């Protein structure tokens, strides 16, 4: 097969890979723009994450605070904790969350995942035409995927930060109300930060998991299919 002037300048595979590009800065810019344009909708999606992360952070940090009080060896601290509703077996050195707490947290995260998947599925579906158009203009599957993952990561970050703050502050306030200043005085800072980090990480992961499948499906579509899908 004779390759004439249209494709004969075509270099080897590596060359083509480099010839179709979307610089990271540009993808970041496009993602931010898409987020800004659909600001209200994104707020709702992010709220789902905020609530889930806040709840997780609240539960984790509450038990961190209780552990702090327990390890302070303050007179009467065991009594105080038991009164506040923590299960304390004899000789325990840390306050774990009860089985019931864990179940509630897991359930809340499950519900949140479903909510996020739903929201991201909607957001990808309503943009099929945009995706198809981009692919007609020469976008690779990976560009489409990257744009959606970036958006989800930014949503996840916002949700995780807000949720972590909200949950952490909530737990601290609740601790202060229940145990007075002792809660703040004996706060194990490292553990609280670790819990915050964990909650934020879970939030990010949820957001990315939610968007991954729909974005992958969208990215792999033939351009015509994508443009027909919406009509």
């Amino acid at each position, binding site marked *: *097969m*004779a*390759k*004439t*002037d*249209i*494709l004969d300048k*075509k270099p080897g*595979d590596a060359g*083509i*890979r*480099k*010839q*179709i*590009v*979307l*610089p990271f800065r*540009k993808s970041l810019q*496009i993602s931010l*723009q*898409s987020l800004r*344009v659909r600001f209200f909708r994104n707020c709702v999606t992010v709220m789902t994450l905020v609530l889930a992360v806040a709840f997780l952070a609240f539960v984790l940090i509450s038990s961190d605070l209780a552990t702090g009080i327990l390890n302070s060896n303050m007179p009467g601290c065991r009594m105080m904790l038991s009164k506040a509703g923590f299960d304390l077996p004899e000789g325990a050195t840390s306050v774990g969350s009860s089985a019931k707490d864990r179940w509630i947290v897991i359930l809340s995260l499950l519900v949140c995942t479903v909510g996020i998947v739903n929201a991201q599925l909607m957001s990808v579906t309503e943009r099929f*035409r*945009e995706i*198809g*158009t*981009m*692919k*007609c*203009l*020469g*976008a*690779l*599957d990976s*560009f489409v995927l990257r744009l959606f993952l970036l958006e989800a990561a930014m949503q996840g970050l916002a949700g995780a930060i807000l949720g972590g703050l909200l949950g952490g502050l909530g737990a601290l306030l609740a601790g202060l109300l229940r145990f007075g200043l002792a809660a703040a005085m004996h706060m194990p800072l490292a553990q609280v930060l670790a819990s915050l980090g964990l909650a934020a990480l879970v939030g990010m992961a949820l957001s990315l998991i939610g968007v991954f499948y729909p974005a992958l499906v969208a990215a792999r579509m*033939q*351009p*015509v299919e994508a*443009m027909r899908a919406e009509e």
Partner: protein
Amino acid sequence: MASSHTIVRVSGVTKTFRMGRHEVQALRGVDLEIKAGEYISIMGPSGSGKSTLFNMIGGLDKPTEGKVFIDEVDIAQLDAYELAWLRNRKIGYIFQTFNLIQVMTALENVTLPMTFGGMSQDDAVEKGIELLKLVGLEGRHNHKPQELSGGQQQRVAVARSLANSPAIILADEPTGNLDLSTGAEIIELLRVLSAERGVTIITATHDYKMLNVSDRVIWIVDGRIDRIENRADLDIQVGEIKREEARA
């Protein structure tokens, strides 16, 4: 000369869609050659398969059987990168529904293919402004698609299709969503581009205004090429064609 070589060759292409349990044959074996620099109109009634043929030529859809060659390269053999490269550099698309990206301004829409093609931001902006000027949209760079009329949106789309100076422009019913005079303006714009830049223009249409500017008209009926007419023969026949259609 550039006008002598074959830029698009379609051979024995069929396409079957599955609609639930039914199989619908949209194309039943099409052979076609298009020379570089030609202005081609693909005409035919709705459901005749012209859009399907059109999508095959543009590499947007794959034929069930048969082959499509763009400049003698079988596009079925291209991998994802090469196909993206082809769409990016060699083919410019114009759609009936404009398909601008709603969240971007006119200028960003025009520069997007250049960004994909690896052009630096400054060069892309400069070329984008130049192209918008070419289609008569000077000073509207920062308008979003919703702030532009249908005709203006289609002009942006024309500018976008020219972004990487493609060899072929594929226009799928470019005037379908426009009123008569706006449609005529877009057709005139395409004609000028074809004449001045030597771009091969292939349109799928059922707009008779398009006939006057086409070098050749390809009539598709029921998934097959019914006849191919040159412009010279056409003027005499236009009236007849209309009557035929009316009777059918």
